């Protein structure tokens, strides 16, 4: 049972990318409905460690506070999750907060996840529109395909799936490491759209190279860690199948 009078939080801090990490503990008064981010906000109003030292407040990323922007992924009590939905009353204390380990630390709990956005660029994860002028309605789509695409389109690019993936390493040189489950699912999202399908091969080509879908080690941690229940392993399997078919087709075409 958590202590109902105070909330104790230990934060792994790091002043900058090349600085050594260190730990600090903070305590705030308990109140109902606290989550990890609201607790950090409370610390910020008077940042003082439990040793009575006045310090700068820990830095973290946050925006929507309702698990739709994807900002606040962090490691809470050893498990990667979104800080906003980590409700204090359901956590053991002291609550231990650490930055994601598979991304470069910028400061404290803030990490640089730009590799995820770069991956989307490399995969050409978009529908190549002729233009934004009025060209009438889009293609018809069955409710079943729409529902599956919707599930894939709820990816908030938080990085939880990369954090738990054994194939992802913090020091992967840019553009060479495994692309990760999130991006593969986005390729499928595009390939399932009748217009997006016209360029499916480009996305599959990108995923057939180094760091592509074949680099998946099938640990299946990603689907467990995803806060939005995205069918990631299904997506990896399906893209794997599509790349295999394309590989065979390419042999005959050549």
């Amino acid at each position, binding site marked *: 049972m958590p202590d109902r009078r105070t909330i104790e939080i230990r934060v792994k801090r790091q*002043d*900058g990318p090349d600085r050594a990490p260190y730990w600090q503990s903070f305590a705030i008064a308990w*109140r109902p*409905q*606290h989550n990890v*981010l*609201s607790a950090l*906000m409370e610390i*910020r*109003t*008077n*940042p003082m460690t439990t040793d009575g030292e006045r310090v*700068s*407040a820990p*830095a973290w*990323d*946050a*925006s*929507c*506070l*309702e*698990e*739709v*922007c994807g*900002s606040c992924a962090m490691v809470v009590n050893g498990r990667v999750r979104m800080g906003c*939905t980590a*409700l204090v009353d359901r956590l053991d204390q002291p609550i231990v907060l650490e930055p994601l380990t598979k991304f470069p630390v*910028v*400061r404290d709990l*803030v990490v640089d*996840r730009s590799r995820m*956005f770069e991956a*989307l*660029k490399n995969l*050409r*994860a*978009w*529908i*190549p*529109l002729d*233009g*934004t002028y*009025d*060209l*009438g*309605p*889009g293609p018809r*789509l*069955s*409710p079943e395909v*729409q529902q599956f*695409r*919707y599930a894939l*389109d*709820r990816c*908030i*690019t938080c990085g939880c799936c990369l954090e738990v993936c054994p194939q992802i390493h913090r020091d992967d040189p840019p553009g060479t490491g495994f692309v990760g489950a999130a991006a593969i699912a986005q390729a499928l999202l*595009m390939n399932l*759209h009748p*217009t997006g399908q016209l360029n499916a091969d480009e996305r599959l080509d990108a995923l057939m190279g180094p760091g592509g879908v074949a680099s998946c080690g099938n640990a299946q941690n990603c689907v467990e860690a995803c806060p939005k229940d995205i069918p990631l392993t299904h997506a990896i399997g399906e893209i794997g199948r599509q790349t295999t078919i394309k590989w065979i087709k390419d042999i005959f075409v050549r």
Partner: protein
Amino acid sequence: MARPRFIVVGGGLAGLMTTIRIAEAGFPVDLFSLVPVKRSHSVCAQGGINAAVNWKGEGDSPWRHFDDTIYGGDFLANQAPVKAMCEAGPAIIFLLDRMGVPFNRTPEGLLDFRRFGGTLFHRTAFAGATTGQQLVYALDEQVRRHEAAGLVRKFEKWELCSAVIDEAGHCRGITALDLTRMEVHAFPAAAVMLATGGPGMVFGKSTNSVVNTGSAAGAVYQQGAYYANGEFIQVHPTAIPGPDKLRLISESIRGEGGRVWVPRDGRPWYFLEDWYPAYGNLVPRDIATRAIFKVVFEMGLGIGGEPMVYLDVSHLDPVVLERKVGGVLEIYEKFVGDDPRKVPMKIFPGMHYSMGGLWVDAGQKTNVPGLFAAGEVDYQFHGANRLGANSLLSCLYSGQIAGPAMVAHATGQATAPADGIFEQEARRQQRAYDRIIAMDGPESAYLLAREMGEWMTANVTVIRDNRKLADTEQKLVELKDRWGRIGIADRGRWLNHDVSFVKQLWNMLELARVITVGALRRDESRGAHYKPEFPNRDDARWLKTTKARWTSDGPELSYEPVDVSLIPPRPRKYDVTDAAESHA
């Protein structure tokens, strides 16, 4: 002049749409955003986007959409831009559909539409109940395509400091703070778009994201941009109260059959259905919010005596709920812990949206030449009360017309800006941050912000009273004074949130004054602005747009007439079916 570059500040729907339109015309864009654009606040929009395609065969039309919007906004919006927006609605939905937005479908594979507040038609296209998220992603993908082609440069985790304004009063670019390196840089542009969203944080707790401070609007307001109708603040009837924010429970819940009730004499009393038989639970937000206030505070019927009422979907088919509003129910489940499919949700109204914003003309131009505004930060489309699912439309429509308007502005520009204005403004802004970083007083910026939010929520939201508004204005002056005695805990020059927040807080206080003084001055009740002392709409005196101009002594208000050339104002009464339904 070399090929013009453009600046867009804000990576939500309006900013992304503006960016796409400029890039599509072949011009380069520098896109600035506090967060990676995919994380912008537009992702929080839930229920859907309105467009009168009449795919349910109900006799809907853009004109009816226009009429609902004007009537819902209590006739305060200028009518021509609203009409143009409603007419553009269907093509915008089709464009989104072509971009791959996974809108819900009918069995025939067509777009599905649902009902929303303030209309009797099924007019709202939706992607589950996370429509804003899907829309942002679709536009984000298009912007990434232009980025890959070299037309768009993103400056993510950068914050606007100021517009760069030349001697003639023309906007020539911006200064912005790199929130990681804490350095100010100046960026020239042929035209600047401000698509920086609403000011929810001025109210402390709201349904908004923490990035929605309104700081950018506050900054350019202090540089001479007019802020219009600031006093019109929408309080959404259904949100989950929380210590850190008020989490929205979408109007689509009621669109899909959710019912609002309180226990009375041991039985559920569906007071909205009782009072408003035609619209029932789907009356506009200002009406529903005031009804909940009446039930809770005047009649003392809140659940267990607390300020809460029930929003109930437990009678609806859980499979349909999952497909149409699953994303919203998930938020309730994750933050409250109860399953709304089984137990009624407990909700209360929460500050949600600003109808007011930067004054713009029909081409989204502010009064500062070269400075444009679109999305929630402009005041254009929603009058005194916004209808649900019209905000996504107004963001996209305003961005869509602003992009080409900015390009047109650039081609008319003959002279290059004077040398040195960029360096000068960057130095001025850097000095402002240097002063903040040295602040050494006893006050906490975060506690001052909390105090401001509590005052604004108590006195400048649902029910307004002139004496309390005057007290609030005094309080804001006091808070501005105490701002000067803030102490900074963090003096580092690397990702220092305290420093940027202190600057934001000043801008928030400036906007809070605009909102408060505008409300104080407007002695009538119209849409979301309700004064029991003046319970009626007063068209003779107040069918006017409030325009606030910054002065060092506080906002100077002036008023301009509203364009009512297309639909003559009529009384707004949702307890009877509106007369216009038959004459439109």
